[in-house]
């Protein structure tokens, strides 16, 4: 096994660089667990307080976009926990999102059970499913792209299963019945109610909190140690599998929350919306654009990527003079979106937040 030299294993971080807030580069003032000002928490509270005022200033259609940002954020944060901190590249996060969405919808539509219970059930099922899949995958030593492909296939299996399953309403999926009354317990408000946003914001905050606590916890550190080198970790007494599975479970549960929010807000879910590859892509795009393996990256990524497609569309709806010939051609907005995506990723391969933080802490 003397093959350190080779080992083309996929690592989610560039190795020469610190990736986690708890790990600062040489010479930098270090924020270490437990002995300095808990900036992460302070920033989080500030974001919530500040974010909560949005409905008072934004238009209704902006709020529709904000909702997408929240869903993206939860998914990105969830993805980042297992893929950024845990080093297991998930290419099928739709699985957990979809499980959350379907659990909520199924329990609500068929049994009139509150979405909150549905959410908890979804989180539990997603965590179990993630652990089951990852147990098998890791037991058989699937790594890097192979692990990614296993998760990809898992999401596809779920999609196709839902697609052909009667009790899950096959391709039709579930529509959440419109209620006459608003109800917290049933997680339904009148159209465009700011409550959707506020609840979503709280979910994002919860996801962030989980993420921060995880990174600062011992378990989080062990997880990152295992990510960096599982054999060395094992030789030091760490049960690599256990920490990996923990990261997967936390990640899956967080992501499932996004499923609940999605279903309750859009009131509809079907197999492709829940388990389709584009859902997984959204989670990855959010986290990577923001900064993989950083605490705040996914949130930044969501704020940037959530509105981007609307912005490109709106931009081309009333284009500047020099772009006028392109306006009105369907697809140009998507091309523009793609160009922005590619440019951001090439120029900031560590993500927006990752790059900025790298610059700031360099000196």
């Amino acid at each position, binding site marked *: 096994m003397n093959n350190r030299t080779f*080992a*083309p294993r*996929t690592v989610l971080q560039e190795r020469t660089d610190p990736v986690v807030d708890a790990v600062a580069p040489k010479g930098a003032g270090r924020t270490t667990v437990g002995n300095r000002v808990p900036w992460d928490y302070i920033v989080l509270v500030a974001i919530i307080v500040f974010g909560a005022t949005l409905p008072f200033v934004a238009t209704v259609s902006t709020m529709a976009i904000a909702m997408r940002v929240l869903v993206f954020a939860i998914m990105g944060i969830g993805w980042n926990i297992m893929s950024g901190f845990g080093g297991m590249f998930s290419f099928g996060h739709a699985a957990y999102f979809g499980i959350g969405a379907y659990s909520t919808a199924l329990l609500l539509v068929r049994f009139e059970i509150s979405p909150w219970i549905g959410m908890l059930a979804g989180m539990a099922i997603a965590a179990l499913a993630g652990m089951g899949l990852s147990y098998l995958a890791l037991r058989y030593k*699937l790594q890097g792209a192979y692990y*990614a492909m296993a998760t990809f296939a898992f999401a596809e299996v779920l999609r196709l299963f839902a697609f*052909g399953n009667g009790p899950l309403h096959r391709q039709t999926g579930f529509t959440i019945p419109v209620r006459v009354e608003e109800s917290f317990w049933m997680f339904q408000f009148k159209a465009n109610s700011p409550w959707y946003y506020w609840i979503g914001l709280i979910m994002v905050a919860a996801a962030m909190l989980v993420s921060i606590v995880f990174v600062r916890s011992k378990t989080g550190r062990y997880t990152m140690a295992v990510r960096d080198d599982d054999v060395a970790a094992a030789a030091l007494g760490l049960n690599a599998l256990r920490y990996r599975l923990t990261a997967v479970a936390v990640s899956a549960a967080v992501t499932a929350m996004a499923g609940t929010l999605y279903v309750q807000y859009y009131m509809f879910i079907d197999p492709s919306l829940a388990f389709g590859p584009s859902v997984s892509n959204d989670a990855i795009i959010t986290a*990577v654009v923001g900064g993989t393996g950083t605490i705040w990256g996914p949130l930044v990524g969501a704020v940037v990527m959530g509105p981007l497609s609307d912005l490109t569309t709106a931009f081309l709806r009333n284009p500047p003079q020099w772009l006028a010939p392109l306006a009105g051609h369907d697809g140009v907005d998507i091309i523009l979106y793609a160009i922005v*995506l590619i440019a951001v990723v090439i120029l900031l391969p560590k993500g927006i937040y990752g790059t900025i933080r790298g610059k700031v802490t360099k000196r």
Partner: protein
Amino acid sequence: MTTTKPAPPSAPPSAVVHRATRSFSALAPQRTRHTLLTTAAVLAAAIIWAGVSAGSGTVLIQALVTGILTGGIYSLIAMGLTLIYGVLHIINFANGAMVGLAMYLTLTFVDGTGGMHPYIALIVVVPAMLALGAVLQAILLNPVMRAPLQVQLLITIGIALAVENILLLVYGPNPRSVALPGNRAVKIFGAAVELSRIYALVGAMILVAVLWLVLQKTRTGTAVRAVSANPEGARLVGINIKRIYVLTFAIGTAAAGAAGVLIAPFSTIEPTAGSIFNLTAFVVVVLGGMGNVPGALVGGFVVGLTEQLGALIMPGQSSLLAVFIVFLVVLFARPTGVFGRAS
């Protein structure tokens, strides 16, 4: 381009067994024999079961023949994907879009030349795609080759979106088609087959053979594998690795181009015509062992047959369900692919 950064440190130490190691090298005979036997047994059982479900010999033979032929198409499409993954470690999400682009180029060629034989388009399309691949790699991907997997994945997702929508913009949304002169149906053991699909299968085999020979037997091919194995070492022996990256992505894209030309005659040509194969191609690549070119052929056959036999065995379910179940089983049982080598 000059770099101020040091070369990346060597990859982190590996686990005891390298599942992720790409496997270009010779097959381990014993393991392979074992696998082949198991595969044969499973296949035989599936065939019998499917035959009973179908209740007709002709249908069964048709399913087998169609399975092999569609399998050939799948591996044709997956070839570029596996090559690019094997060397560059890029999960190329744009592979399908490239196939779609090649179909449109074929269409343009046929229309533009007043109805020339579509296969002649290979002469134009393959070099064009080669050039396109080279440009994409040189401009978009080379700058981020040291970044982790997901960064490159995202760029290919962006490329896919852009290509599909440019096709939409240029050619419009209406489906198109190209006709293959002299295309007709022939009978094989009672199964009916279109000639165009047989040509595609033959094309897949030739492509595999060519790529395999190039990789295994030529000096450049060895260099490609060397870069894939250790970029730093490759640089130190004098290989310009960025050039090899460009070459590899170009070849991979050209392979997608060849696939596009060959399947154009029996495909509905739409901007998304290639992307619908993305899922299947990923499966084929993993089944065959990522980076394993001959493996992609085997993977294609496995997927093609699974789809066909699965449809007979589990009518009413999406045939892809069977494919993905087989896929997961194989992934766990033989993590380096049916044909891959367990190191």
